[in-house]
């Protein structure tokens, strides 16, 4: 028993498995006066015993239940064999390989204090005889000590292994996150925002918002499953798409080539659903293909309604593609939002197993559509979290939101002088460019502004107040307002000579100009405030149908009187 106490302290020290195994064998040899010893570790997943022979050599494996060691593992009882070659359970193969001759052998189970089988210990060839009853008692006591010590080391090693794995995953996460746009691309007249929240360290979702020669590329991808495997697949897809567009590929070519590449390499039961679109920020048109990614929501600011688009194709990588259905065109009006949202949002389940669903998404966009897209994304994520009420996130969540800026208005004031005209033209030109207004409308707008402004200069001689010009973008065009302070009323929409309150002048107020204006623009309205002595003229100009037709019309009306 003293010998056992001696080895107990030796077993307390080692922290790595190989040292511990050597210590255990040494202890057994010492206590039992045996010539050799070995320790088999139990692998519960395979239900096998594993003998670590030496580093660099493949370990020997034995099924539980076979041979002396296997029988011991199964029955968890000590087996004392005085003459091994007389026992049918003994396998002489090991002796044959090593040239050693096993005479007698004690085989005992290593069971820890929680009754978990850790392994089996074998000691061979007692010096000068066979193992007796006393040896069995000693060995059993020793085995208990060894089992606990071994289990401690195994758990420590598993912990260290887990820690290493965690660090590797953290690196993978950093790499994946770095493929997402670091800053959102800036597109005049647009607000684009994307974000991704993986359910685990790495995610099976990806997104992209990047500028290429054809416009703004918007991508949302979702590989089957989540975790490191799908993360590698979607990251590969995102990189291939980005490169395809950088090399000038069309939407169709990019989609077909990336699909076919993925179909070659992805496992047969794997695929990636993906939205791939290119926004032309001047024509305000998003052309897209959706490979199994849906629904795509188009929020329309004018009505508050959402249109849902279905996929144009099956998921990427599912099969080879030779042709595609036509891409879908979505025309974005001011304030409209195209929303790409992964099913991690739609299918988020609360504790009662109810899904977040599309209706909730639509409600949120209706309530917050005038906010920035970064803010709308936060609202959506907050709502999902509130809905979940503690239910865990099981799938990756990714949002890509592209909004055409709502009707915005810009204003500037101009000195009541003909010298101000150039400044007015610069102003309209600037607003048209910034808000991507159809430039075909510019000539008619400038003509009308010039006519109305010069009228104000000519006929309101008593006022020194500046004239204010407001330009607001509306659906397919602009609304321009001129505000004239400290003046008598003069309604341009009426026949000018009908207004007798005007200061007397010899010349008629540009009769032909006003006549033309009424035909050039869509509408002209006049409003006068007596209290403020303020005139306000508002006119609208929009493209009739397609922007091209409108441009042709405006060109024809370019002549000035």
């Amino acid at each position, binding site marked *: 028993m003293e010998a056992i106490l001696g080895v107990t302290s030796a077993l307390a020290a080692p922290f790595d498995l190989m040292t511990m195994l050597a210590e255990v064998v040494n202890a057994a040899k010492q206590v039992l006066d045996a010539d050799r010893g070995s320790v088999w570790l139990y692998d519960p997943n395979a239900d096998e015993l594993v003998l670590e022979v030496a580093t660099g050599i493949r370990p020997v494996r034995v099924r539980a239940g076979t041979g002396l060691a296997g029988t011991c593992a199964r029955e968890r009882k000590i087996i004392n064999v005085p003459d091994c070659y007389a026992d049918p359970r003994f396998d002489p193969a090991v002796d044959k390989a090593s040239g050693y001759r096993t005479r007698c052998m004690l085989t005992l189970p290593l069971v820890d204090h929680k009754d978990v089988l850790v392994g089996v210990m074998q000691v061979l060839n007692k010096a000068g005889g066979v193992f007796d009853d006393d040896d069995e008692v000693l060995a059993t006591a020793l085995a208990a000590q060894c089992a606990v010590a071994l289990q401690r080391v195994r758990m420590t090693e598993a912990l260290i292994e887990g820690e290493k794995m965690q660090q590797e995953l953290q690196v993978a996460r950093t790499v994946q996150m770095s493929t997402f746009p670091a800053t959102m691309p800036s597109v005049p007249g647009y607000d684009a925002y994307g974000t991704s929240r993986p359910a685990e360290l790495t995610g099976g979702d990806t997104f992209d918002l990047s500028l290429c020669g054809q416009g703004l590329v918007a991508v949302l991808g979702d590989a089957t499953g989540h975790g490191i495997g799908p993360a590698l697949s979607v990251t590969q897809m995102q990189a291939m798409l980005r490169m395809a567009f950088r090399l000038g590929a069309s939407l169709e070519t990019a989609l077909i080539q990336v699909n076919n590449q993925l179909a070659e390499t992805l496992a047969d039961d794997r695929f990636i659903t993906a939205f791939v679109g290119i926004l032309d920020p001047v024509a305000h048109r998003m052309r897209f293909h959706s490979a199994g990614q849906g629904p795509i929501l188009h929020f329309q600011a004018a009505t508050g309604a959402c249109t849902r688009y279905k996929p144009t194709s*099956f998921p990427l990588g599912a099969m080879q593609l030779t042709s595609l259905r036509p891409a879908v065109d979505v025309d974005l009006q001011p304030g409209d939002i195209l929303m790409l949202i992964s099913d991690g949002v739609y299918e988020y389940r609360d504790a009662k197993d109810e899904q977040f669903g599309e209706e909730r998404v639509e409600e949120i966009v209706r309530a917050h559509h005038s906010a920035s897209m970064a803010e709308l994304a936060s609202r959506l994520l907050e709502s999902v979290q509130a809905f979940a009420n503690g239910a865990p996130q099981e799938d990756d969540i990714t949002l890509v939101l592209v909004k055409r800026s709502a009707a915005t208005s810009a204003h500037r004031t101009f000195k009541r002088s003909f010298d101000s005209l150039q400044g007015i033209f610069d102003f309209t030109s600037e607003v048209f460019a910034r808000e991507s207004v159809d430039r075909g409308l510019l000539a008619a707008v400038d003509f009308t502004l010039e006519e109305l402004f010069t009228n104000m200069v000519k006929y309101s001689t008593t006022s020194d107040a500046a004239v204010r010009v407001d330009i607001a973008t509306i659906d397919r065009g602009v609304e321009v307002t001129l505000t004239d302070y400290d003046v008598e009323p003069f309604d341009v929409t009426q026949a000018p000579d009908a207004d007798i309150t005007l200061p007397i002048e010899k010349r008629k107020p540009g009769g032909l100009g006003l006549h033309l204006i009424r035909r050039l623009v869509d509408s002209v309205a006049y409003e006068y405030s007596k209290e403020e002595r303020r005139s306000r003229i508002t006119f609208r100009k929009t493209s009739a149908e397609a922007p091209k037709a409108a441009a042709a019309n405006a060109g024809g009306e370019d002549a000035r009187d």
Partner: protein
Amino acid sequence: MLAIDYGADDVIVIAGRLDSAQCPAAQSFLDKVQGTVTLDCSKLEYISSAGLGVLLKTQKRLIASAGKLRLSGVSSHLRDIFVYSGFDQIFEIEPAR
């Protein structure tokens, strides 16, 4: 739970939930199927994306040897999933009667 087996007229009947946990069982059954076969989905309550993967793998294998997997008795709920994932373009889908 999921049950998959041959029914009448060599039609394969799949019943229950085809989620990630049930995929290996469904896959090993479908791996043995040959030629052109019909999968009766009228008792299929749910399918996850992993389940779609099982059907896809089977379809690819069958098409390679000039066969195919046909889906019948597809409920409107399941149909939505097939349509929203673009799988209606890979499988012949017969709606539920």
